[in-house]
């Protein structure tokens, strides 16, 4: 095979239809000087990737995956160790472009198996300021569990919308609880300490006050009871239609909420980002999304080409391609100004990476209102560790969370039970 060709299997990155994809690939080819083939399965991405990799790799040189799949892929020898290549790359190894911590975050046993698609953002609380204004509610004084509690009670009292609840969280997938456990300085997920010991801090005894707090919210109907079953889609709908006062969501969504509100923004609706509670150290502690990554299949015959693509993604031009899209298709340069075309508007400045990985990337167009404020909290966010046990952890703690919050069992009991279950499953020692 021609060594100038890179075959890519992508999920989120690229275009939405053939025309988009062509424009994207053309631009990428121009930037890299390579011939690019990009394939995008409609859905069930993991299955399709498995089929292709299991069928001799299909000549793929670069595959997209989420950080949570990485360990399995490595285990099944699906992707190769690219530590050397990364170290050998001027761009990728430049800590000014990609901070060391980013690499550490995705390293497995010190080895690097993947490069970045984008800068992963974090989830943080958004409050609908429009409601606060309308019902004349005092904003937060300080960010503690009690203060939030007071805010919620006031909201509950004053806001007379049918079916309104001050706060909603998707309890079952535990993504939304980090801002609250921050109050005790506890991190969600499985935490591996220096000695390799695994712990689950949010079921430790110190976590009890937060659980109590959540439980009280539920009892006093400050927390939407549907939080036990709602998915993020419902939660978003409720927040957007002022059925809920506070939700925890991705940073980018602060902007999307405001954009989606149309004419209601900013008078009747304004999503304002907050950092949640602070740790005893006075810092925020937020949940950062699992990395959105690119790996090189073990069967690849053009690793250099693949690395070249990864490097490109870390450049300013690459960043523009990943966010705005391609020139002449998604945007035009008019007097040095970036102007989105109709296509570009449709893509909403997202071709797979609304926030490119490079620290030096400068967004050529303004973000949606509120996004920049939300992004300021990024420094407080970190990802969870992704281990093969993670799904099981989620199952056990998710189940326990529902039981505790809904009042089925007491907090102590619940914690004890979760601890026992985690131990049984061999997740914690």
């Amino acid at each position, binding site marked *: 095979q021609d060594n100038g060709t890179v075959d890519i299997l992508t999920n989120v990155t690229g275009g939405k239809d053939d025309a988009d994809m062509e424009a994207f690939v053309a631009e990428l080819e121009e930037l890299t000087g390579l011939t690019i083939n990009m394939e995008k399965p*409609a859905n069930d991405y993991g299955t399709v990737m498995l089929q292709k990799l299991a069928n001799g790799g299909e000549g793929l040189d670069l595959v997209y995956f989420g950080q949570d799949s990485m360990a399995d892929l490595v285990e099944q020898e699906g992707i190769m160790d690219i530590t050397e290549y990364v170290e050998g790359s001027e761009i990728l190894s430049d800590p000014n472009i990609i901070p060391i911590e980013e690499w550490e975050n995705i390293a497995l046993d010190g080895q690097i198996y993947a490069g970045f698609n984008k800068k992963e953002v974090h989830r943080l609380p958004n409050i609908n300021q429009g409601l606060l204004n309308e019902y004349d509610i005092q904003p937060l004084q300080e960010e503690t569990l009690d203060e939030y509690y007071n805010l919620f009670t006031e909201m509950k009292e004053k806001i007379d919308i049918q079916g309104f609840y001050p706060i909603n969280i998707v309890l079952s997938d535990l993504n939304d609880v980090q801002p609250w456990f921050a109050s005790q300085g506890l991190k969600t997920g499985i935490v591996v300490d220096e000695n390799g010991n695994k712990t689950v801090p949010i079921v430790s005894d110190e976590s009890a006050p937060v659980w109590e707090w959540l439980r009280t919210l539920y009892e006093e109907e400050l927390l939407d009871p549907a939080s036990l079953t709602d998915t993020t889609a419902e939660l978003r*709908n409720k927040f957007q239609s002022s059925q809920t006062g506070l939700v925890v969501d991705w940073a980018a969504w602060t902007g999307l909420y405001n954009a989606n509100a149309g004419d209601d923004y900013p008078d009747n609706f304004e999503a304002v980002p907050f950092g949640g509670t602070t740790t005893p150290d006075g810092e925020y502690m937020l949940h950062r999304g699992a990395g959105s990554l690119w790996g090189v299949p073990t069967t690849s015959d053009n690793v250099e080409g693949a690395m070249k693509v990864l490097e490109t993604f870390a450049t300013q031009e690459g960043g523009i391609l990943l966010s705005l899209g391609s020139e002449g298709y998604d945007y035009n340069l008019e007097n040095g100004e970036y102007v989105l075309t109709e296509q570009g508007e449709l893509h909403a400045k997202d071709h797979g990476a609304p926030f490119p990985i490079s620290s030096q990337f400068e967004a050529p167009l303004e973000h949606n209102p509120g996004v920049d404020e939300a992004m300021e909290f990024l420094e407080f966010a970190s990802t969870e560790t992704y281990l093969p046990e993670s799904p099981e952890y989620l199952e056990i703690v998710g189940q326990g969370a529902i039981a505790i919050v809904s009042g089925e069992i007491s907090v102590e009991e619940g914690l004890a039970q979760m601890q026992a279950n985690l131990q049984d499953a061999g997740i914690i020692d």
Partner: protein
Amino acid sequence: MKLPALFSPSKLSKKQPKSNRNQLTPTLKFLNIIMLIILMLSMIVPFLNVLSIAFSSRQASMSPGISIFPKEFSTEGFSYIWQRAKLWSPFLNSLFVSVVGAALQTFLSAITAYILMKKDLPFRRLIISFIMITMMIPGELTLVSIYTLNKNLNLLNTYSGLIINGLVSGLSIILLNNYFESVPRSLSEAALIDNTGEFKIFTRIYLPLSKPGIATVSFIAFVSKWNSLMIPVTIITDQDKYTLPMVLRNLVFNSSSVSGSEFVPPNAIMAAIVISTIPLLIAYIFAQRYLVSGTIIGSVKG
């Protein structure tokens, strides 16, 4: 003065007298009707809910709760989803693949079913078992190999791939076989004596006489092709050839744990559901009058 028709002097009422013969006692009848009404409501209300959200405005569609009537009537969900997801091509692809697939499946199943009617065909039972076993194979078992297979047969990213996979189905064969059995054997014998070839007996006698069975099997085949997701996802990456479920699944099911920034309003999601259901409903309406007589399942003893 002319008497109105209602008081026509004829002693016989024009309408068939409503017979009360051989029916349930009034209590049971009432209970039965109540049971069916509750059932019907439980089946219809969710669908009405889908419709009402689909025809609501974007804002209205986001407010939670079950609604039966659109809150603010609007078709923006439809236009949004149609343009946004560029549904024309997937819609037509699905339609093409489902119609052709259903037609071929019906035809091939019919041929097979016809052949399996021959009682003295050696190895008949063996062949039937051979076909029945295929109905039990879980898709996950063949997940990887089915991809390899399609690749080796050059079926990736082709319409023929979409059509060929799952083309012959054991269930269709069994249903049609049951149906053919109910065609009097003497008809085919008469045709034989009329010097008719097997194929002509099949096309000119069995097919026309099994319309209900054919309608039922085509309907089932159409529904399963229309809703089919696993195979299209496996073999299609070319966006030109996406089918409707491939596109819709993403919309309805946009996973939130990924920090993507897609937002599809509920009215558009429900509109997508409505769009994908309408052809099924139309197919159902066509097949409906045959369904009861067509699904002769009887006692299958393979």
